[in-house]
């Protein structure tokens, strides 16, 4: 199988998520202002910063341990639907990694799919509801397809990040059907979903670190 992802790389992924969210914090907050209360960036930044505090990965010996730490820290710190949904996403990825010390591309793709299922279980989102799942679902499919087609993990993750960004852009034309933004109905049309935007950053971070 192409490529392998170990605990150190996953730690680098989490640090890159934290950095990207920090860079885009105002964009995420402003997108959230169109349908929510303008704090999506600040809330995620608080969670990822706590999850990736200096030395956080030193004693982590498996993907499961590391992702469980990130997921439970986000659940404990972030609150709101972002905390529950992102926390569940990483906790389900952790579970799906089993006891492996490192995972291959196919396993990572399964983990991502398990994380996506966690989001569905927690919040009931489907594609088209204008949520973070609109970025994640096409990324999961793109990763699977690319690996099956024999792409390297690096290029498959690149395609997944691009699919996530296209998914993010697809939310501009949608009216929100889940979460706080759904209370505004058609008034959310014309703006990308804040959650879909942060999820696209998470997948972009994966493409630059898990190679």
């Amino acid at each position: 199988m192409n490529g392998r992802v170990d605990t150190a790389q996953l730690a680098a992924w989490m640090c890159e998520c934290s950095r990207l969210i920090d860079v885009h914090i105002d964009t995420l907050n402003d997108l959230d202002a169109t349908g929510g209360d303008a704090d999506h960036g600040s809330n995620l930044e608080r969670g990822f910063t706590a999850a990736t505090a200096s030395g956080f990965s030193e004693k982590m010996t498996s993907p499961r341990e590391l992702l469980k730490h990130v997921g439970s820290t986000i659940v404990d710190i972030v609150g709101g639907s972002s905390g529950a949904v992102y926390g569940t996403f990483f906790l389900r990825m952790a579970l799906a990694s089993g006891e492996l010390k490192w995972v291959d591309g196919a396993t990572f793709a399964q983990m991502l799919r398990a994380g996506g299922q966690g989001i569905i279980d927690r919040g009931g989102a489907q594609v088209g509801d204008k949520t973070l799942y609109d970025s994640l679902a096409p990324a999961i499919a793109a990763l699977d397809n690319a690996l099956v087609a024999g792409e390297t993990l690096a290029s498959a993750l690149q395609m997944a990040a691009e699919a996530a960004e296209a998914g993010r852009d697809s939310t501009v034309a949608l009216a929100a059907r889940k979460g706080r933004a759904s209370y505004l109905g058609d008034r959310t049309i014309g703006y990308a979903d804040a959650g879909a935007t942060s999820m696209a950053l998470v997948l972009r971070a994966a493409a630059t670190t898990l190679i």
Partner: protein
Amino acid sequence: MKKFLNDPAHAVTDYLVGLAAAHPTIVKFDAAHRIIVRAADPRTGKVGLIAGGGSGCEPLHTGFVGHGMLDAACPGEIFTSPVPKQIVAATRAADQGSGVLHVIKNFSGEVMNFGMATELLAFEGIAIDSVLIDDDVSIPDMPGTAGRRGLGATVLVEKIAGAAAERGDDLASVTCIARRVNARTRTFGVGLSSCTPPLRGKPIYDLPDDEIEIGIGISGEPGRERVAMRNVQEIARTMIAEVLADLRPTPGAALLVMVNGMGATPLSELYVLYGECDQALRSAGLNPVRSLVGNYVTSLDQAGAALTILELDDEMTVLWDAPVRTSSITWGALA
């Protein structure tokens, strides 16, 4: 931004410290778990009631902890639901051996975090039931959506179910009356301004002087629609029409009418609005017999108000009138 703040990141903790300092005989701040609990334990065997939600809506819920209402409240960050850890700690604190009712407003984050907490609590043998508050008529009640928000009905449920628990009702009965109150309550809110979350430092959106947001919630997000400003009579008429069309009360029904301020509207204006509502309801052949006017479910410094109407029955009325001692609602003599 001009606000009474230290570090905006500590705005919630600082307010909880002050709340407990101001009302030491009513509440305690459990800083380790970041929850507000009653200063004195209720009698053994009382069904516990807890609620939680984003801060910024004060006095909801922390101001309603005390005799006759809640046993504990879990305040989240500003406009962000609490985390499962807080809900677990509040449930443990509220349990006197007869179970705990979770009062959950229908916001995605709140529902998900209470859901995660309930999964964790399943290991502990505490009987838990829940009531989902969804009284906001500004949102169509359709399958496949997040559903209606929980707004003013939350206060009425906490008061009436809290009184039921205080008189010794069991968990099933307390849950039942809580659901009955929610089922017979509707709310519609109107915003005259945006609000400024401390960490953001500026209003969430711009609202011109001659426009208002109708169909607002309690987290500073825009409403269902932006319309031209109109006079108070017309606003009252809109609110009443929205609420009554959905509530469909029995002709002549006894009503509890709540005119709730969003935080920055003077009490005098709320009474102007109440007067208009009261008159219009009586003209419609209805009978407002109880009222609550003031800032009870707010959105920081937003100007505006929400109308909440509950169609009362005799038991609800008795429980509404029962003695209560919280930092924000207090009446009747305690036994």
